[in-house]
């Protein structure tokens, strides 16, 4: 009969030697200082800085309500090189004025290649009527000013494994900015796809980057720009709105749709795209931006008791407690910012989760279209202040903004 398997060939006394082997390994190792930085951590820090400091080196005024601001690295504050990014990315601008601390995301309109060797980075800002940040930047920012920026962020990027070889770009107004980065990157061979861009403007003179796009079309046969003017009927331009019919006239058999523009445009275009019967994976929206006016949202709780115009929000940050009066028509994040609290915020559209905070007590309303929380976050009363409106007095716990 075969012997039952056993470990008898190994002596249990070997166990006592283990200790000696370990001690010997430790004894013979150097007592040298350990590295402070490892190479992959250095790459990660270069790609994903929490903060980038810049100086405004050029301002281009498109008209009274739109400017492009070009930044150079501010070496005096420790930024020698802006982070490389993928075309389509955005950066946040950090602003502090009139007792407020604001964070706003802007698509980078320049190409990643422009950042190389201490190079520049450009955002394009359009005036939002009543907007706190855009009015401040357009009216106050000038060449030589110092600016504080985040690292590159966002998911509105082209991925060849996921997206079709042709992208139908749908841009409205200042929603053209990421497409400028896409087109320039195609010319610079950092991106490789066919871009058919439908760009909606009111009139010819409202078109941003017209000369640039003319150049890119000449430089690369992968780029085609179709200008669509809503308020002007002019030779060489499509007239009216971007519609399913118009897209179908230019589109190849397979394509991805990338959309960037105001919320109203998304609503209209999503309806139009419905006619084209595309699977969800072929349609990508850049951040929809902030929602205002909670009670106008289709899923606002209709039978909810009237929410007072002003509510009280008690805010805990790292053991400190502050109480503020907030308008119930502002998101929780807007109220924090207006009260000078540097709350974490990146996308302001509910998606990125950077503002994720804990609702200790009270009730908030988040429109369903902005709901992107992790499933467990909802169970444990975490919420995204950037897209949540107070429905009562609140007590919340937030993290401080990094930086």
């Amino acid at each position, binding site marked *: 009969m075969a012997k039952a398997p056993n470990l008898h060939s190994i002596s249990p006394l070997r166990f006592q030697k283990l*200790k000696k082997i370990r001690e010997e390994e430790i004894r013979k190792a150097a007592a040298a200082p350990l590295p402070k930085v490892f190479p992959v951590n250095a790459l990660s820090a270069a790609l994903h800085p929490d903060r980038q400091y810049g100086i405004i080196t050029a301002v281009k005024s498109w008209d009274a309500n739109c400017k492009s601001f070009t930044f150079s690295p501010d070496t005096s504050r420790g930024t020698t090189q802006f982070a490389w990014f993928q075309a389509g990315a955005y950066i946040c601008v950090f602003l502090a004025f009139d007792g407020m601390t604001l964070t706003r995301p802007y698509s980078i309109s320049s190409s990643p290649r422009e950042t190389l060797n201490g190079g520049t980075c450009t955002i394009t800002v359009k005036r939002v009527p009543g907007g706190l940040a855009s009015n401040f930047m357009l009216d106050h920012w000038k060449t030589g000013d110092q600016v504080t920026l985040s690292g590159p962020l966002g998911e509105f990027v082209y991925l060849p494994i996921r997206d079709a070889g042709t992208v139908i770009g749908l841009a409205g107004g200042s929603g053209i900015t990421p497409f400028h980065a896409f087109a320039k990157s195609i010319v610079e061979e950092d991106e490789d796809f066919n871009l058919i861009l439908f760009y909606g403007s009111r009139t010819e003179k409202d078109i941003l980057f017209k000369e640039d796009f003319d150049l890119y079309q000449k430089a690369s046969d992968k780029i085609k720009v179709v200008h669509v003017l809503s308020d002007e009927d002019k030779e060489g331009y499509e007239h009216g709105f971007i519609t399913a019919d118009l897209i179908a006239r230019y589109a190849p058999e397979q394509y991805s749709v990338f959309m960037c523009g105001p919320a109203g445009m998304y609503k209209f275009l999503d309806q139009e795209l419905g006619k084209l019967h595309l699977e969800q994976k072929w349609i990508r929206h850049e951040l929809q931006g902030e929602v205002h006016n909670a009670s106008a949202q289709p899923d606002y709780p209709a039978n909810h008791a009237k929410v007072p115009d002003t509510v009280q929000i008690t805010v805990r940050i790292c053991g400190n407690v502050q109480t503020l009066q907030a308008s119930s028509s502002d998101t929780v994040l807007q109220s924090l910012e207006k009260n000078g609290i540097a709350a974490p915020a990146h996308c302001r559209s509910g998606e990125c989760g950077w503002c994720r905070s804990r609702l200790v007590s009270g009730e908030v309303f988040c429109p369903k279209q902005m709901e992107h929380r992790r499933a467990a*976050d909802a169970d444990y009363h975490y919420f995204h202040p950037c897209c949540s409106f107070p429905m009562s007095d609140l007590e919340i716990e937030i993290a401080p903004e*990094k930086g």
Partner: protein
Amino acid sequence: MYDKQEGDILERYDVIVIGAGNGGLSAAVTTAQAGLKTLVLERHNLPGGSATSFVRGRFEFEAALHELCDLGTSEHPGTVRKLFEQYGADVDWRIEQKLFHLIVPNDLDLVLPTGIEPFCAKMEELVPGCEPSVRKLLDLGKLAGEAQSYAMKPNASKLVMMTKYADFLRMASCTTDEGMEAIGMPKKAQNILNTYWCYLGAAPDQLDFLTTCQMIYKYVYYNPGMPNKKSHNLSLTLESTLRKSGGEIWYNSEVVQILIENNSAKGVVLKNGKTILAKHIIADCSPAAVYGKMIADDVPRPEIPLRLANARSIALELETMYIGLNRSAEELGIDTYSTIIMSDEDPEVTFTKSNGTDKGTFIANCLNLIIPDSSPKGTCTLFLTTFGDSSFWGKVKPEDYYKIKNQRMRDWVDYYEKNTGITIRPYIEEIAYATPATFCRYLNTPNGTPYGYQVTYWDNIISRLTSMDKETGYKNLRITGAAAENIDGYNLCYLNGNIQGRKTIKDAEEDR
């Protein structure tokens, strides 16, 4: 002396835990429940470290590495289930009935079931004659747990260890290769069982037999599983348990320095300049970071931990890919939660080839097989893993980074399709690829490794456990996490945290 420093001095805590990874959370719950005033400081805006999730489009992707291996049932709970029950942390667990689908191209293609009897029967079918050695290995795995519990008792006797648990000492002192040879396991059976090396991050000629037997036994007897609402659920249930015991947790609060005075930890300094004092500190960080950069340069390093840190090498890095598919697992033909593709039958060969280019080891997980509604109806998620290569990524220029990522996404998807015969490419709705640089961004570990230090023969679990009390550095500073005594692992980090939490409670009692 700290009162005279600049910056705000906040109130004093009994315990500060640096890092809200699994080890940190578990340690913090342990000390808070013992009545110690506990504060957790986390540099990220989320708890969990590797055990986290993120949302892209309509998908929430699980990021944990990978499943928990010894959940058991409520009647026969495994260690992690027991620990969470002990903490009073409520979790809706989901159990998987298969271990893995192993593919070695042109060689092996097999699925192993859980449960001692089905597992042994399947192994005997695959490798006739191997069953007695497989049973022996499982018996040893069971014995290992009993012996370890006995050895931890204060009155444990050497004689009992040398007689009743002699096999425990044998397992602990031989490598996996030696142990499997000793019990006469056929080479092919060894190779199949050694598939698990990839979850321990060490090749069978270095990994101790004790760890291997224990892990295989836990997987087979207790079953793998996951929390219903992803591992983020585990972090939040621990966080909530911590708060109930009066503990606090601050996010976006990176500790940049641990203050040492007279060879004893006194407090920490945050990135924003704030100093917080504490009687005890538990760092859920790599010792490489603690002794490398978190202590002021002019403070002498304790000799043994410093030499130990120099003697060890940083564990393997990982690369992971998260794919949201717009078809169900059933429609695509995915029928196993874990599929492991090994480029060679011999684990020592795949270990040496473990980097992102060669894909020596390639793991594909479809969470929908354990939790069908873990993604929207009509969709599923795939989570791909292979070992990374810091010597490659450390040389990558930022301007080449995304091009390399795009190329690798194509390579990986092709590799998966070729080896499984399952088409996924046309159905990719969302995809994210975490390189070691991504791991650095979220974990901030050396070169982004989630696994602490490389496990070697002289630095295995038992060697770490038996020497931990002799290798401590500064007084009132304890280190936990993936580099700690139970080695790395999703479930092991919870245990590590618990051990250091309990030791800290003891330290606090001795102070009184």
